[in-house]
C-alpha cells in the first residue's frame, strides 16, 4: 500500500535498476529522493528548523524584546509594518510566530529522540533477552500505554504545576506516555529478526550476545522504529500546542503557538489574525513532519505498498 499522494513509479522500474542487491537503506534512499512528498516535507522542515535556530534571519523584530510592543497599535489588522497584524498587547504577530517555532521544534525533536532511545533500547533488551526482562518491561509498558496521552500529560503537568512548567516538563510528560509505543515496535521487530538464519550463523561462529544485538539485530530491526519516530514528531508538536493552549504547557513569556492561540482567543471573532497565523504555522509544521513520516514509511516498509 502506498499512503503518499504522489504517483509511485511502477515496481518493475525500480527492480531493473537494482542489478546488484541493494541494501534496505540504499533502496530506501533511492525511493525517498524521487518522492515528491518527501522533498516537500523536508524543505518545509528545514525552513522551520532554521526558523527555530535563527529566528532573527526571518524577522528583524526580536519578539522577546517587550520594547517592540506598543499598546497604541494593539489589535491592528495586517499592515505594511506588521505583516500579520498586532496582538492584544500591540506585539508584532509575525515576529512572534517566527520566534514561536523554537518551542515546537525543540519539543518535537527532543521528545522523539528520548522516546526512541529509551523505548527502542528497552524494546531491544526485552526482545533480545526475553524471559523476565521481557515480562517486566512489557508489563510496565502496558500500563503507560493504557493512558490516553493528552489526559496523562494534562495530569502530570497539572501536578507539577505551572510554576515549573516549560519545555523540559512537556518533554518529560510526553516521553513518559510515548516510550511504550517504541518499545512495542522495537520488541516485535527484534523478535522477528532474532530467529533468522544470519543470527543463528553469527552465533554459531561464536559472536557474543552484545555483538549479535548491535551488529546483526539492531540494523535489521530499526526500520519500523524510525518510521514510528518520524510519524510521532508531528504528533508531539501538535500535543505541545494543545497542552500550552490548555495552560499546562510552556508558560508566558516563552513564545509558543499554543499559547498565542490561547491568548488571542477572547478577541478572535473580531480580530482573527493573532490566532490564525500561529494556527497556520502549527498546521504547516505538523504537515511537514507527517509528510516526512509518510514518505519514510513507504520507503522503509515495502510490505505496506
Amino acid at each position, binding site marked *: *500500500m502506498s499512503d503518499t499522494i504522489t504517483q509511485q513509479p511502477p515496481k518493475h522500474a525500480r527492480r531493473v535498476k537494482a542489478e546488484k542487491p541493494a541494501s534496505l537503506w540504499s533502496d530506501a534512499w533511492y525511493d525517498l529522493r524521487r518522492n515528491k512528498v518527501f522533498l516537500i516535507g523536508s524543505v518545509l522542515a528545514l525552513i522551520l528548523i532554521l526558523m527555530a535556530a535563527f529566528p532573527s534571519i526571518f524577522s528583524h523584530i526580536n519578539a522577546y524584546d517587550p520594547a517592540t510592543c506598543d499598546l497604541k497599535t494593539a489589535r491592528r489588522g495586517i499592515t505594511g509594518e506588521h505583516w500579520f497584524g498586532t496582538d492584544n498587547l500591540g506585539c508584532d504577530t509575525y515576529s512572534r510566530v517566527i520566534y514561536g517555532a523554537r518551542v515546537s521544534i525543540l519539543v518535537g525533536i527532543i521528545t522523539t529522540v528520548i522516546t526512541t532511545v529509551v523505548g527502542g533500547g528497552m524494546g531491544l533488551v526485552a526482545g533480545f533477552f526475553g524471559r523476565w526482562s521481557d515480562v517486566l518491561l512489557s508489563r510496565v509498558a502496558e500500563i503507560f500505554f493504557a493512558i*490516553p496521552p493528552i489526559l496523562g500529560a494534562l495530569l502530570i503537568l497539572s*501536578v507539577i504545576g505551572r510554576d515549573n512548567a516549560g519545555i523540559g516538563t512537556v518533554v518529560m510528560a510526553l516521553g513518559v506516555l510515548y516510550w511504550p509505543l517504541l518499545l512495542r515496535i522495537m520488541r516485535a521487530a527484534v523478535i522477528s529478526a532474532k530467529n533468522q538464519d544470519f543470527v543463528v550463523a553469527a552465533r554459531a561462529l561464536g559472536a557474543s550476545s552484545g555483538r549479535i544485538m548491535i551488529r546483526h539485530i539492531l540494523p535489521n530491526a530499526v526500520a519500523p522504529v524510525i518510521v514510528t519516530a518520524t510519524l510521532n514528531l*508531528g504528533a508531539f508538536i501538535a500535543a505541545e500546542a494543545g497542552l500550552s493552549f490548555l495552560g499546562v504547557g510552556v508558560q508566558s513569556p516563552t513564545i509558543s503557538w499554543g499559547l498565542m492561540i490561547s491568548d488571542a482567543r477572547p478577541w478572535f471573532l473580531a480580530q*482573527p489574525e493573532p*490566532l490564525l497565523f500561529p494556527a497556520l504555522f*502549527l498546521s504547516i509544521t505538523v*504537515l511537514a513532519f507527517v509528510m516526512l513520516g509518510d514518505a519514510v514509511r513507504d520507503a522503509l516498509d515495502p510490505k505496506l505498498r
Partner: protein
Amino acid sequence: MGRYALRRLLQAIPVLVGTTFFIFVIVYALPGDPIQALGGDRRMDPVIARALRDKFGLDDPLLVQYWHYLTGIFSGNFGTTFRGVEVSSIFAGKFQVTLQLALTALVMEAIIGVGLGLWSALRRGRWQDQFVLAVTLLLVSIPPLVMGFVLQLWLGVKFKLGTGIELVPVAGIGAGEKSYLLPGFVLATTSIAYLTRLTRTSLMETLRSDFIRTAVAKGMPRRRVLGRHALRNSLIPLVTYLGADLGALMGGAVITETIFNLPGIGLQLFQSVYLRENTVVVGIVTVLVLIYVVANLVVDLLYAVLDPRIRYE
C-alpha cells in the same frame, strides 16, 4: 476462544491496578501541604489541621491511602475536594455531554472514514485515490485546536454574516443535538483520516485474496462480490478500531469541549486544572482512563468473536 478471553481478562488486571496506582502516586508526590494551603496565608490552628489530616487520611501509609482511593472508585465515590464538594456531584450530567459528543464523532468517523476509504480503494491509483490520500494527509496535519477555531470563525461569523444562514451552532449545547455536529466533526478529524487509510488498506488486501478471485471467476455480480465477500471481511479491523476509539475520543474531548464551550467532562477538567482542584482532575482522569482501558478490553474480546482465527500468542 474461552482461553483467549480468560487470558485477556487476567491481563487487564495489572493494567488497571498499574494505571490507577500511577495516577495516585503522581498526586501523592505533589509538593506542598494541601491542608496548610487551605488556610491561605494564615497559619492553620494545629488542632484543626490535625483533624483535617485524620479526616482525609493524609498520614496513612501510601498503600493504605491507595487502597482507600481504589475502593472508592469502584463504589462510585471519588472523594471530596478539600473545599468539601463531592467530586461525584461535579460529574453529574457532564458525562452525558461528553458521551454524546464522542458518539457523534464516532458516527461521523464511521460514515466519512469508511466511505472515503471504500471510494479510494475501489478507485485505486486513479485521481480519486490520490485525492482521498491528500485529504487524509491534511486531516492528520490540522490539529483539532486549529480546525475548531477555523471552522468556528468560518461557519459562525464569515458564513453567517455573509449569507444570514446558520448552518450549525458553533458554541454551547443550546440547540440540542445539532450543537454536537461541528464539535463532533472537529473531534473526529484525526480519526477520520486514520479510518480512511485503514479501510482502504483493509479492503485492498481483501480484494487481493483468493476467495474474491473465485467469486469473480464463477461469475458473481460485482455488487455481490463487494457487498457479501469483500466488505464483510474487511470490516473486522474497522469495527475494532471504532470500538477502541470511543475511549480515545472521550479522553481527547478536553480541547474540543474547551473550544466549543460544551459543558462536558473535558471542559470541567480544563477548568479544574485552571483552578488547581487536583482531586477533581484525578477523579476525571481516572474515570476516563478506566473507560479507555475497558473499551480496549471489550474490543479485544469482540475481535476474537468476529474473527475466530485469532488466538492469543
